[in-house]
């Protein structure tokens, strides 16, 4: 992180490369096939749908690096809620 990064948000291409690689390698190393990810996604939709109405098309899951890197990879799910069931 450079001195001026706080003021000038534009990342250098080297930093962009490093960030892209970190994400890429986490998913490469996790050995999770797209099919498995699809199965996980469908199961999440099934479970959450019991309690609330969700936008299943907008649902996005991915394996990425945890914000705290010492904790290893994490499964992030972004699940847009349409309506909370009463």
């Amino acid at each position: 992180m450079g001195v001026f990064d706080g003021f000038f948000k534009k990342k250098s291409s080297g930093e962009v490369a490093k960030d892209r690689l970190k994400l890429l390698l986490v998913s490469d190393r996790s050995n999770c096939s797209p099919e498995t990810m699809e199965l996980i996604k469908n199961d999440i939709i099934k479970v959450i749908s019991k309690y609330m109405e969700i936008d299943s098309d907008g649902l996005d899951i991915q394996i990425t690096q945890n914000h705290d890197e010492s904790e290893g990879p994490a499964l992030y799910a972004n699940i847009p809620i349409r309506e909370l069931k009463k």
Partner: protein
Amino acid sequence: MSEVIVITSGKGGVGKTTTTANVGTGLAKEGKKVVLIDTDIGLRNLDVVMGLENRIVYNLVDVVEGNCRLKQALIKDKKYPNLFLLPSAQTRDKTSVNPEQMKKLVDDLRQDFDYVILDCPAGIEQGFQNAISGADHALIVTTPEVSAIRDADRIIGLLEASEIHKIDLVINRIRMDMVNRGDMLSKEDVLDILAIDLIGVVPDDENIVISTNQGEPLVGSDTPAGKAYSNICRRIMGENVPFMEITGPTFFQKLANVFKK
């Protein structure tokens, strides 16, 4: 004690063959008895980089199939009498040899040489499995690019799965001017991502092209790449050679970059 070193990368075109030629020649220069094996069957190149393409009679597949004795296929280097090349076959494919045959060949060569160095083909198929089958030590060559580093990471995983745990990294073709302005991954960035030991950083140097044109490895010459390869050889022999200090951008360079944006 002899050591079998495989030079590998996953991705093609990052400098495996150039590294093999220079590391092999450098170790021979230090007085070691060295044999280089080109395992890229069908796409042989190491002979050309070494400048020995006109001396080939027999090749790796001939040895494995028993068409000749091992000694007959070894080509002596032009400059160093203690350096030999076992060339690959140009008109065959990777299935002509299997990992068991390679392991036996390498074990035979261990008896007579201090270092057996294998130039691995790109990819992770049978050619790769052949090349690593008898190795004790792997040098992974990468460039500071996303694609090459991704493939290097995959190779590290495959080597560990094959019980090769002595793995060192060579970062090739680094350009300090680009690193300093933040447009290339630095040595530290690459190490941070791959988390393996570093054995050398080779700067992008046009002398490599000249040396390949002439078929004479430039290790040991007074060029940036020549010095970097010498250092790698000394580290392979167990010497503790400090890395040339590579500086990050200074305060004024950062300031100048800000105004450029």
